[in-house]
């Protein structure tokens, strides 16, 4: 069953497993249906052929329980090994934030650019997408990379890939999300090194299908946007970014650190923790602080949360 091109190394590994299982299935299909056809022809009702009285055979029954079990276990392990490769992004990945909304995809880059329904990434470099949804569940699906991940409101999910084939790749929404679900498509452009340099410099790219025209005006980076938002939303009244004491904990060195909670638990301050701290501050109270922080759910938008977290991440 023909597959789309395999545009990452993981996709190539995926294809090996897929074809192995296709052939294994063909073998078993022929075994079952072939045996069936052979039996019904050979043992069709005939006057001179009497049926034989057989009620079971333990050896056979043990064999056909154990052999399939062993085979599916092999497939399971193989599937898990490839799956681990699919979900653990290398630490040096380029990060892009993705927001799904009915019915479009929005992309926020570290350098402050934002695009809609077109994602630009460099070839041969790992890219990690940090994704969230503004409304209902969507699913980010790139068949050429064999990756898919639901994009869920209220939390971050992520996906990564290292594209090896420059050019356009199709992005689909794979989770039903209402009227225009089937038109929630986007293009993923894998840029050659030269094109990527152009893109980063804000120059126009020579892509036939792309609608994006870049301008040279330098925009604030995502982290800088986050810093500005902290001022606008009044976070700075309670939080410092240099370690100085305020009513709330400082952001300095917060990202990926171990946070001790009031209930004695220790959690890692990853993206989902930070997000929860902003949307539902009382859910995990930091030890030594009171429940002072108001909820910002619905007050800061998805784009703004992404910028704020990018800023906190930059304070390492």
């Amino acid at each position, binding site marked *: 069953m023909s597959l789309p091109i395999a545009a990452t190394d993981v996709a190539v590994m995926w294809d090996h497993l*897929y074809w192995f299982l296709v052939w294994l299935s063909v073998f078993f299909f022929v075994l079952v249906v072939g045996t069936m056809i052979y039996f019904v022809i050979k043992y069709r009702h005939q006057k001179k052929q009497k049926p034989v009285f057989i009620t079971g*055979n333990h050896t056979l029954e043990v064999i056909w329980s154990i052999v399939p*079990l062993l085979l599916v276990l092999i497939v399971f392990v193989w599937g898990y090994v490839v799956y681990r490769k699919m979900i653990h992004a290398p630490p040096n990945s380029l990060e892009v934030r993705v927001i799904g909304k009915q019915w479009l995809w929005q992309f926020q880059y570290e350098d402050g650019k934002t695009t809609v329904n077109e994602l630009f990434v460099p070839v041969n470099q790992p890219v990690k997408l940090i994704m969230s949804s503004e409304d209902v569940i969507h699913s980010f699906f790139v*068949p050429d990379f064999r990756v898919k991940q639901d994009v869920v409101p209220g939390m971050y999910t992520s996906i990564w890939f290292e594209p090896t084939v420059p050019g356009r790749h199709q992005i689909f929404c794979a989770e039903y999300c209402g009227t225009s679900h089937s038109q929630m498509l986007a293009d993923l452009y894998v840029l050659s090194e030269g094109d990527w340099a152009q893109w980063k410099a804000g120059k126009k790219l020579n892509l036939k299908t792309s609608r994006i025209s870049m301008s040279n005006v330098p925009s604030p980076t995502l982290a800088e946007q986050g810093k500005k938002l902290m001022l606008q939303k009044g976070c700075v009244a309670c939080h410092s970014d240099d370690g100085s004491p305020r009513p709330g904990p400082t952001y300095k060195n917060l990202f990926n650190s171990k946070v001790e909670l009031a209930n004695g638990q220790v959690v890692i301050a990853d993206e989902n923790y930070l997000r929860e701290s902003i949307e539902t501050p009382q859910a995990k109270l930091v030890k030594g602080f009171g429940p002072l922080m108001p909820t910002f759910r619905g007050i800061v938008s998805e784009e703004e949360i992404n910028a704020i977290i990018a800023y906190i991440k930059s304070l390492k």
Partner: protein
Amino acid sequence: MSDTQTMHYLNQTTGIWSWLKTLDHKRIGLMYLFTVLIFFLVGGVFALLIRWNLFYPNHGFVEANTYNKFFTYHGAIMVFLVIIPAIPATLGNFMLPLLVGAKDVAFPRLNLFSYYLFVLGALIALASLFFGGADTGWTFYTPYSIRASSSMIFVVLGAFVAGFSSILTALNFIITIHKLRAPGLTLGRLPLFCWAVYATSIIQILATPVLAITLLLLVFEQVFKIGIFDPKLGGDAVLFQHFFWFYSHPAVYIMILPAMGVISEVVPVFSRKPIFGYKAIAMSSFGIALVAFIVWGHHLFVSGQSELANFIFSLLTMSVAVPTGVKVFSWLATMYKGSIHFNAPFLYVLGFLELFSIGGLTGVFLATLALDVHLTDTYFVVAHFHFVMVGGAIMGFFSGLHYWYPKICGKMYSEKSALIAFVLIIIGFNVTFFPQFILGAQGMPRRYWTYLPEFTLLNQISTVGSWMLGIGFVYVVYYLLRDLKKGEKATANPWRALTLEWQTTSPPPTENFVKTPVVTEWPYEYRE
């Protein structure tokens, strides 16, 4: 149908009220059958409309919102109103008491009440059509369903009410099997269909309440905004999926186990040989019922579920291969050195084995973590579960329907018509659904109103197949109705089978047996 010489359950009393108020399990079974076939027709029309809209990309036969309602009603009707009740409520109701040599089910009044609950649930669900129609998909995923039109509430409440009907029916069956078996019918001699219905009933009793609570919570969330499933209210969007699949995965086995039970009866009768591995087949039904409850997470591999959970659910799901393999191989071994008769019930067994093999093997693809990531939510999944649900459950249902037709109506169906219909259905089915595996592998997502031009050819093949399938199904209903009048008169035991239902007349008298049968051997003692 009427036969003036002898009295039986069909002519003992007459008039519409004698049916609507009947406590006879056979008449209740027939009322279910009639109701289920009507819904099968309605669900099927939705299917044809879906396929026609997908005949061209951007076809626009209907607009997207209407299309989304089509697949919602197609799925909800086929799952809740057709496949789940198809075998247990129709053939199970009719046959179970006969198979165990009883006069009726344990609680006949409860049985009738279940039927009306089912009809009530169905009517509530369909009432939603008059309030704009639901467009959430039969899976009702939150938070979309919470924000969707409130007509969704009717569908959900309908499924809720119909759920109680299946709980009560299951209860009735379990008690019937325990308490009303004829003298000599030890558990070790129980026909395999009864074992399958027993295992199914356990799942229904344990899993359906979870669905009921989940659906109720969903209604509360939409009406009172309590904040369990909607992240905007501080809820957890994915929690619903856990609740939903905790029921709906076992529901898959509610659909397939009874079909497997039918196959286990039909294979030995038409091979003229004992069933191979009676114990293993009976136990594997319970094996399947047990695993059913611990694999729901395989529907959530890309939902944001943790890596550890994915690992465990993938591993557990793989184990389903063993009990299903045991059944398939045992049926094949039953045919070995038999004396095979190709009557329609057996043809559907062959159809079952072909389709279910494909459905089962592609299930392994989806249980494999890495493969599922690409294949889930594409047409691969759509093809997979149609091969299992239609290929498995409906083939089993049709096999049983033909097998017991002479007993139910006292007439023989026409084998010639049955063969024509079977060929149409089996070819139509493969032409409809096999291309969908390829579409899915190529990346076409499911629930798409339109698609990219490169998917056109395979979609058109699939649509043409759906016409054949549709004609095949309609033809079955047609000749089965025609032969009620035109069919030859059936003898008590036209298939020379050994289970108890064949020891009474066709059709049976109202209380099934003139004299309570006594069982002296197991039901697969075929020595010729």
